[in-house]
């Protein structure tokens, strides 16, 4: 049978069997990755070199605890996604191509952190990029998907070019292809080379991690991809950008000057605030989650920058806290963001809706999905009992405990970044309350939302795995203590020499006074809530029997679903407060009756929120590129002789240069 057209629903096929195969393969790969990563973290590093696979350099893998933690995280996410995708692909009647590509994508994701040499790294990176592009395009019949795919392709390839240049320069200067040799020669590099490599990699990896201003592909591609793929991209692929920054800039190039850490902090803070701002006004559920990814990667980058800055200004203990915060937040983000996208996917497959303004009332129709998304949202909002709480607490501690005697840079950077992180947390709470409260509570706003059905068992199983991970991060980060300590040991330049924070039942910070215990806090909170419930039962015997009545409609008979607040109206105050940054274009047109100017026939209110950075930053670039293309086209007049002349000229130039 011929390969089916991508994405199209193809009736005569046992989609179920194929979905089970692809999902199972994905999960197996993930499980293998998880096991391998853990074994490396707690055992010895693994080396693998396959000479014949690639001419000249060969392929070499070299897995140490730092890579291991990324491999393990990717593997864990893939397990959940694989289980989930069995049911999802069956429901969505996936075509064959995405089913085949999904495991390949996971393989690429697992290979990147394991790569031991520049060549291998670039190859795995390209594998990851290409497969993810195919997956993003799997529903290519929709225009939105096609435009998003094109945008994603261009951005990711540009990023790849930057990384390619940087690594080639590094390999040339480092006198070798494998990271080990480069690390050996790293101290001898000139500061010029270091700076060039740092800037190039910052561009390349930053665009992959969705940092401002190179984030623009992320809120387009992640929502348009099928939800399991969105989960993989948002929870595993963006991590690779962070991995690159840690591996190349912070580990190989060693301790950089002050301004490296400062640059990372600035970009991180900008990305965090901007991303959360966009998330808090977004009305598309998956786009909201995608912007929240930008936000969280920004937080991680800020923590990395803080770690670099602190260690370069002689505070290894605090730097270790910042580094732990970065890694812990990375992992917890992987947990709650994958859960969030999977839950959003089950909503999408049950209602065909992503627009929060049309959703609502899912709590009664999809209780399990509602609870699971609630766990994810709680984690994303960084509140106690949430997965993100411990890591954000560590981040705050590292920021407020920086040494502030006679160091102007720290004295300026730390308070401002505390303000930025705090604003991010606050707006993040608002965004998640909107996503959960408007999307899942209250009454359905459309018939489609009213007709929602609970997701099948396999999808629920996949989500439950992610939810379990979230719970671990929320109440027992103690379980991750050893892992993080091993990884921290790998990074001597980031305070790895100093003793990292002790993630016991009670998190204690050595060197600085500070302690918290998520687990005990959760237990105490439960007890307190029970106490409150008990208080509310006081003098029950005097009460008339409880009843259930209609909602109070201010005397009117019934409240229509359209009288509810929507996501747009919920975010309106925030949009108004941050008017100068968001630049919404709203227009109100009032049509009067022909009879009189004083009688209003109807009022239409329309508001549109475009990504302002995209508006200001990308449009001119695109215009410039187009002009350049026009110029180039002039050189192509189709005459073969002319082309031959070009070739000859180039050869001459090359010869002259090479001489």
């Amino acid at each position, binding site marked *: 049978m011929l390969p089916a057209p991508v994405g199209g629903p193809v009736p005569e096929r046992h989609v179920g069997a194929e979905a089970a195969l692809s999902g199972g393969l994905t999960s197996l790969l993930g499980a293998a990755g998880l096991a391998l990563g853990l074994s490396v973290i707690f055992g010895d590093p693994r080396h693998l070199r396959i000479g014949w696979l690639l001419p000249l350099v060969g392929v070499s893998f070299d897995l140490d605890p730092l890579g291991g933690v990324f491999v393990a995280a990717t593997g864990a996410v893939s397990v959940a996604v694989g289980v989930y995708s069995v049911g999802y692909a069956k429901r969505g009647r996936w075509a064959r191509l995405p089913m085949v590509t999904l495991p390949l994508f996971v393989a690429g994701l697992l290979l990147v952190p394991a790569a031991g040499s520049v060549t291998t790294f670039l190859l795995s990176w390209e594998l990851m990029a290409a497969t993810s592009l195919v997956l993003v395009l799997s529903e290519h019949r929709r225009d939105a998907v096609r435009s998003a795919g094109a945008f994603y392709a261009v951005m990711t390839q540009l990023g790849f070019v930057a990384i390619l240049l940087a690594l080639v320069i590094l390999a040339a200067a480092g006198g070798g292809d494998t990271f080990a040799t480069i690390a050996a020669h790293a101290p001898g590099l000139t500061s010029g080379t270091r700076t060039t490599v740092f800037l190039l990699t910052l561009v390349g990896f930053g665009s992959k991690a969705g940092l401002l201003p190179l984030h623009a592909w992320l809120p387009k591609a992640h929502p348009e991809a099928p939800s399991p793929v969105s989960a993989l991209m948002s929870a595993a692929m963006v991590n690779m950008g962070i991995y690159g920054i840690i591996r190349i800039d912070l580990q190989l190039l060693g301790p950089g000057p002050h301004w490296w850490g400062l640059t990372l902090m600035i970009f991180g803070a900008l990305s965090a605030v901007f991303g959360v701002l966009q998330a808090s006004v977004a009305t598309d559920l998956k786009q909201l989650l995608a912007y929240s990814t930008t936000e969280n990667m920004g937080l991680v980058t800020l923590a990395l920058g803080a770690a670099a800055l602190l260690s370069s200004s002689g505070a290894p203990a605090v730097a270790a806290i910042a580094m732990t915060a970065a890694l812990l937040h990375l992992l917890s983000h992987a947990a709650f963001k994958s859960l969030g996208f999977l839950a959003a996917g089950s909503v999408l497959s049950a209602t065909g809706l992503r627009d929060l303004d049309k959703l609502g009332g899912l709590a009664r129709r999809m209780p399990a999905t509602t609870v699971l998304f609630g766990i994810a949202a709680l984690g994303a909002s960084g509140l106690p009992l949430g997965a993100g709480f411990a890591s954000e607490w560590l981040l705050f501690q590292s920021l407020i405990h920086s040494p502030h005697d006679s160091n102007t840079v720290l004295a300026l950077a730390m308070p401002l970044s505390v303000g930025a992180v705090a604003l991010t947390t606050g707006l993040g709470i608002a965004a998640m309350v909107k996503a959960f409260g408007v999307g899942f509570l209250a009454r359905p706003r459309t018939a489609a939302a009213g007709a929602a059905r609970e997701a099948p068992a396999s999808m629920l199983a996949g989500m439950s795995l992610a939810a379990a991970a979230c719970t671990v991060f929320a109440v027992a980060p103690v379980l991750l203590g050893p892992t993080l300590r091993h990884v921290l040991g790998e990074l001597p330049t980031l305070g790895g020499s100093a003793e990292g924070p002790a993630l016991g039942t009670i998190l204690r910070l050595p060197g600085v006074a500070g302690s918290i215990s998520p687990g005990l806090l959760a237990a105490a909170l439960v007890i307190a809530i029970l106490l409150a419930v008990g208080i509310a039962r006081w003098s029950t015997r*005097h009460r*008339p029997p409880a009843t259930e*009545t*209609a909602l*109070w*409609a201010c*005397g*009117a*008979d019934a409240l229509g679903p359209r009288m509810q607040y929507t996501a747009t109206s919920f975010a309106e105050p925030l949009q108004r407060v941050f008017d100068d940054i968001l630049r919404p274009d709203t227009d109100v047109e009032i049509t009067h009756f022909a009879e009189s100017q004083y009688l209003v026939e109807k009022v239409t209110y329309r508001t549109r929120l475009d990504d302002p950075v995209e508006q200001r930053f990308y449009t001119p670039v695109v215009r410039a590129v187009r002009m350049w293309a026009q110029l180039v086209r002039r050189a192509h007049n189709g005459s073969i002789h002319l082309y031959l002349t070009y070739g000859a000229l180039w050869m001459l130039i090359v010869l002259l240069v090479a001489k």
Partner: protein
Amino acid sequence: MSWLAKIRRVGRMVEPAGEAPEVTVAPPTGVTGSLQLRHVDSGSCNGCELEIAGAFSPVYDAERFGARLVASPRHADAVLATGVVTHNMRQPLLNTLNAVPEPRLVIAVGDCACNGGVFTKGYGVVGPVGDVIPVDVHVPGCPPTPPQIIAALRTVTGR
């Protein structure tokens, strides 16, 4: 600073409270001295509204007897109905009463609410409040003065 001076000059402007009248209606929940009211204008001429506003003003200060006007019938113990019930306000009045949690009272303020007043047998009216919902306390007068309203409230709050 002129504010402080004014406050000192004015001092206490509230009318002296008479002795508490005997409790005719037992307080709904058995807790004396607390009565939240939801006011419903079921077709009044706003005369009674003015007097009710006066009753809660600093001069008469119904709050010192534990009475308070609230925004939502869910928070209320009693419905304070004024005016004759018009056809359009009949259902809203019923809805409001049903929204009030048990045990609850209905206080009809003004002649129109008690017996229809000048609007009796008007083409647009259903009748006095008593024809639509059971009334526990009547406050006659067109409009009743704030002291009358307060006296009626005190018979319920028992303060």
